[in-house]
């Protein structure tokens, strides 16, 4: 490399960005959608759309539990929230759950428990105190991805409805295997039977564990891509000569210059997000990429250390139960006043109620808030708020809980970065801002990939571009436009596959990959520009028509959801519509575009559309 630091950085930026750019585009695209994975899953289960949240939701859930599981060891009610309209209940029978799970846990779960324990830092160990729950929920969460999805999906189908709903419900299930759960209408209390779907969860898992690869491999691959992204960001900042001068600059219709402007603008205007999301993503892979660090802290047997810590927690819980039991057994106090009290103390709605030993002496009601209100709070079980309140079920007396242990500074920073990456604390407005920044990141990676090609095409004088260049051009189509088409097909499959078909969730995923594969084959048979145009048109058509598809296949279309102000569902249709329109707009611009360089013999590269009209949902 000759020239100054800027040249060498530019070289580094170009190549590091290119080599993992296709993967990074997929990670950004699916990861951005994953900010709304619960909402996407909800959209993909129309059977749940009729449920309307009501103030009686908690009572509906508890009375259903008393009816179907009067003898259970614990009950859980997940209340409607700004991300869900239904009541989800689950229960754990005596002898089931934690202990049992340990015994019969699948290999995958055991492995996860290991890595979970390994990633727990000593200061945090005490704080993963509903240890079982958190670990259980996550282990399960993981088991859902990849091959796990299939295995678990089958099991769930026997007990209840959709796998994604089940997964969410499982988080309420006291952590264990979610054998027993129901989704209820939040107004009528009627039991709902949602279709099986891979939901938003598939896209979420894909963004860091890909699919069908051994988990360790996938995490290594995505981990390396993340590291490369970090290199690309830093070298990109150094390469960018006029960060401030070009801060607001976008010059459309100027070929390479326009692509560079679009790339720079989306990079610079959400730079804090890009740095945060990449660095925190890297930290989330620490236990994969640097396993020695946790081994040094927890010893060779993290599992044993973890079990030990959990045993201590359980002893403490037992003592608490004994204390509460002194008041004797009796009917449960009404839940309303307890919820009111909890909500007043947090200043936000409750999201989950857990009742241990319902009806027996020592029964305790725990109430969780919807979200954390500080980044340094550990994420509560299931990603809900961490500050839970406990009451005696007999008389409603508050029970003091040992709060979070103080964390070291390093540990707090780690927690904060983890919170920022997952954004579980984000209320809807803030979630949209994360989404917007994610769209910026997706456009940044996409324009960067195209730029690599455009830049070299404009310089090249060869009659025919070299093979490597043509390969990049070709892969760009499938990796960018193709992924969009595949995602559109995935949503269409959700509505078009018959609701009762076996392995339904798998077929949704199969549709996604079959279509994606096809988009890589398609450019082999077509000239480059035609391939771009056709795939953009197809993707645009799929997304623009999603509100229509929804109107034909469900009763919860825009005509209904907009009128009733149901933004949870309307949001999906509207974003699809806007995204699809942007894709069509881009396709039309491409059709009108004439190759601009002096060498008209070569097929022209696509003209960049306005920054908004680029791939990213």
């Amino acid at each position: 490399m000759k020239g100054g630091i800027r040249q060498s950085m530019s070289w580094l930026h170009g190549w590091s960005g290119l080599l993992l750019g296709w993967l990074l585009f997929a990670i950004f695209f699916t990861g951005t959608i994953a900010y709304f994975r619960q909402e996407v899953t909800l959209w993909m289960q129309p059977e749940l759309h009729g449920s309307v949240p009501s103030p009686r939701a908690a009572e509906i859930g508890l009375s259903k539990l008393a009816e179907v599981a009067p003898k259970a060891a614990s009950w859980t009610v997940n209340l409607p929230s700004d991300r869900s309209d239904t009541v989800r209940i689950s229960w754990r029978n005596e002898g089931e759950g934690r202990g049992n799970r340990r015994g019969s846990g699948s290999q995958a779960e055991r492995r996860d428990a290991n890595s979970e324990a390994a990633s727990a830092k000593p200061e945090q160990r005490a704080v993963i105190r509903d240890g079982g729950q958190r670990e259980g929920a996550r282990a399960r969460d993981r088991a859902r991805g990849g091959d796990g999805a299939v295995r678990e999906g089958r099991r769930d189908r026997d007990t209840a409805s959709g796998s994604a709903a089940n997964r969410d419900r499982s988080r309420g299930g006291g952590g264990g295997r979610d054998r027993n759960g129901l989704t209820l209408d939040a107004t009528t209390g009627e039991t709902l039977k949602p279709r099986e779907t891979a939901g938003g969860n598939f896209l979420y898992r894909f963004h860091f564990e890909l699919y069908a690869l051994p988990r360790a491999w996938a995490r290594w691959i995505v981990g390396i891509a993340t590291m490369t992204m970090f290199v690309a960001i830093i070298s990109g900042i150094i390469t960018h000569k006029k960060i401030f001068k070009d801060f607001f600059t976008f010059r459309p219709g100027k070929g390479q210059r326009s692509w560079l402007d679009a790339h720079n603008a989306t990079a610079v205007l959400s730079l804090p997000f890009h740095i945060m999301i990449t660095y925190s993503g890297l930290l989330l892979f620490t236990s994969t990429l640097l396993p020695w660090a946790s081994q040094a802290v927890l010893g060779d047997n993290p599992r044993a250390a973890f079990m030990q810590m959990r045993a201590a927690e359980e002893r403490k819980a037992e003592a608490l139960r004994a204390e509460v039991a002194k008041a004797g057994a009796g009917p449960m106090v009404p839940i309303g006043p307890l919820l009111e009290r909890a909500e007043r103390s947090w200043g936000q709605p409750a999201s989950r109620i857990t009742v241990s030993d319902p009806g027996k002496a020592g029964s305790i009601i725990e109430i969780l808030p919807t979200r954390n209100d500080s980044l340094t709070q550990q994420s509560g079980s299931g990603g809900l708020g961490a500050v839970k309140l406990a009451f005696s079920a007999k008389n409603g007396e508050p029970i003091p809980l040992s709060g979070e242990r103080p964390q070291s500074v390093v540990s707090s920073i780690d927690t904060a970065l983890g919170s920022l990456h997952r954004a579980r604390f984000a209320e809807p407005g803030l979630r949209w801002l994360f989404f917007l920044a994610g769209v910026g990141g997706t456009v940044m990676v996409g324009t960067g990939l195209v730029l690599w090609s455009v830049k070299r095409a404009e310089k090249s004088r060869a009659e025919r571009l070299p093979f490597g260049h043509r390969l990049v051009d070709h892969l760009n189509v499938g990796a960018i436009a193709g992924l969009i088409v595949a995602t559109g097909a995935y949503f269409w499959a959700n509505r078009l596959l018959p609701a009762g078909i076996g392995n339904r969730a798998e077929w949704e995923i199969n549709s996604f990959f079959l279509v994606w594969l096809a988009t890589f084959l398609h450019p082999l048979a077509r000239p480059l520009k035609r391939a771009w145009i056709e795939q953009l048109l197809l993707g645009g058509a799929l997304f623009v028509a999603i509100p229509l598809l929804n109107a034909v296949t469900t009763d919860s279309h825009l005509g209904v959801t907009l009128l009733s102000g149901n933004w949870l569902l309307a949001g999906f249709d509207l974003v699809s519509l806007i995204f699809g329109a942007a894709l069509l707009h881009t396709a039309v611009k491409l059709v009108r575009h004439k190759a601009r360089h002096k060498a008209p013999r070569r097929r022209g590269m696509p003209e960049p559309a306005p920054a908004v009209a680029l791939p990213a949902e």
Partner: protein
Amino acid sequence: MSLTSLALAFLAFVALALAMDRHHGQVLNGRPSARFRSAMRMAGAALLAMSVIPCVTAHGWSIGLTWWIGILTAASMPVLLLLTYRPQLIPRLGLAAPLVALVPFLSHI
């Protein structure tokens, strides 16, 4: 309150853009005088600093700053798009922004 912050940040970015030759030309024609330039820079910096206040008072430091950074992105992107496609709208929107910033306070009157 996030609306107040968004409006202030938008105004800040408009001011900062007007301090730059290229964008000054797009919006108001001609080059900015040295005095105008430094006044716009100061106003932009002050408005940016002000825009953090509603976020932090409403959400606390850690989540408030997260809001603020998100809002900076959400406020700067439209400025870029307007400068590119509809620069003539910027003065009008710039005048409307302070009013929008006051909207969340209406309920207190």
